[in-house]
């Protein structure tokens, strides 16, 4: 069973994304509402997520900053991160791709194909 960590400051988006992944792919979900909380959740040795789906624009630490901090932490640096952004400008996309994340997906996402898009980005076959 895959475990996915969703980090987003919007309660509604966390809930919808979680429902979508559970209902369409049967994945297990943990959520966090900020970058700092997300790092703590990812570092939990008992529930280490297989992948992280993270919002870009968050108050406090934004997505890219959180990602860089995760890269500094050997316990979580290997977990693939997919950014979920409402920014669609080309400049932003190139900036995100330059970070070394596993993928960038865009809001508003399609709840029926979100899991498939994540699997594609990560090369998951199942």
């Amino acid at each position, binding site marked *: 069973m895959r475990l996915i960590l969703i980090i987003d400051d*919007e309660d*509604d*988006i966390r809930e*919808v*994304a979680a*429902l*979508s992944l559970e*209902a*369409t792919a049967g994945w297990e979900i943990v959520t966090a509402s900020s970058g700092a909380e997300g790092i703590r959740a990812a570092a939990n040795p008992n529930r280490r997520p297989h992948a992280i789906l993270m919002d870009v*624009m968050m108050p406090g630490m934004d997505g890219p900053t959180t990602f860089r901090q995760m890269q500094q932490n050997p316990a979580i640096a290997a977990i693939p991160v997919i950014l979920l952004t*409402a*920014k*669609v*400008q*080309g*400049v932003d996309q190139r900036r995100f791709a330059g970070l070394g994340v596993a993928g960038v997906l865009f*809001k*508003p*996402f*399609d*709840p*029926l194909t979100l899991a498939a898009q994540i699997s594609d980005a990560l090369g998951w076959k199942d």
Partner: protein
Amino acid sequence: MIPLPSLVFGLLLLSLFLLGGLTLRLASRSRQQKHELEQLAEALRRSQEDAEQQKNKLARRSDLDIVKDEFISTVSHELRTPLTSIRGALGLLSAGLLGNVDAKAQNLLRIASSNTERLIRLINDILDLERMDSGRAPLKLRRCSIYDLARESVETMTAMADDASIRLELVCLPARDAIYFDADPDRILQVLTNLMSNAIKFSPAGSTISIQIDSDINSLLLKVVDRGRGIPPDKLEAVFDRFQQVESSDSSKKGGTGLGLAICRSIIQQHGGAIWAQPNQDGPGTTLWVQLSRSARASDAAPSSLIASPVQRGEGLILVCDDDPGIRVVVAEQLRQRGYDILEAGSGEELIALAKEQMAQAAQTPSTKEHAPVSPISGILLDLYMPGLSGWETLQKLKEEPATAAIPVVILSVIPPTERTLLAGEAQGWVQKPFNENVLLAELGRVLRTKGEEGPGHILLVEQEPKLAQAILAGFEEAGVRIDHASTLQQAVDRCLRGAPDLMILDLTLPDGDGFSLVDWLRRQPTLRTLPLVVYSGREISDAEMAKLRLGPTEFLDKAKVQPTEVEQLVLAMVHRLRHPAAEPVA
């Protein structure tokens, strides 16, 4: 015999009379001169005021543009966030993934869901257009096959066509090697799928939509022919405007955004091509035409070989002068990618010093084994509004200095190029900010290539009346001027795409449109929007219409007053004035 005193008196009287007349005439002439001088001074003052007003207006407009860009970008981001929750919730519910709902509720969910999709498309389209208009979506050109792109679009759209019981048919007439052109494939796919999706929406079930590809040496032609209800003649141009649909209920019934064709036109124009709609001749329905240059204008400065290996050297040394370091960095980076070497200057003063020094060094140091030669400056990109020396003053000083006078200058300014004659006669090129990378490269390439040349003028006559056209053509041919003739709007567009004329003579009445739509089209072409224009028309033209018809330098000739045989003389005089602006009096 006349007595002597009378004779003396008579002579005296005569000379007094003559003298008086002379004095009177002199007085009147000096009054007239004074009057003319006053008029000149007044005209000068007014034109200075106009320029000042124009300058303020433009500065305000560019500030407004920046605010508008940021606003649109922020709003679209802020709208996306709540839409993400709405789309997610509705999508999960209406797909029945969280349990079944009854039929009425299901229908309401479907309505909410499909309208959410429509709102998302609308936001994406608005953002797309905004990015293209502001030049922030440069084309990624590479060699493409129009056939492959069309086939891919057909494959993408087949599902939608099947749902509507419509057949898509692809016909490719040219030989396999005549279908390649330079383009941004993603953007062309966007246009093709958009045109097909429109055609499907407006076609009756059971009909066939035909996609036809044709080509000649210079251009590719793609047609999308549908058998739908057709577009009324007065809407053929308007459908390319934003939020213009043939029937106001179309956007809700057909699920469109009203921006699709505006986006298509924007993309095709970025490629230096043209797109237009025509009613079918052989039955109901509409044909959408796309014409693309095979060696796209945009690619003149960036042929595919350069794109394959982006960093080449040796295109020339360009001096970029702008007080905004951000603009300098962007321009320098784009030009370096295309093989230009760059020097930067942050002010007019710096530019002049740098240009003089570089030209002096280039003149002094011959190429030796130890030292690479110092290259002379091939061209200057110059901003107009700068603190200290303005662009106009800088240009003046460059042209006064013998060492720098011959360097071609391209103005890079928020002022539109239509104002160029008014403002800077000595610049060889003009690119408006916010600029499109391809336009900048094409304009720079053109200016560097044509440096010092003043080839014979090439005139395009657009006139539907054959006899009249014959008379005008004869006049020019006698004078040894190269002149082409187009008798329809379509032909005029074709000719312009094959090579920009130096001047156009335009009749307003054309069999397949009018002069206004041609001028409108010309205005949207980066390399044609400053084309000198002579409107030769038999109908009365109001001031408002004149404003609509103005391109570059524009003159209006009335067919009732000017004979066809006189057109040649008047036009050649205009060409002469354009080439030698100094010969014209101030007023």
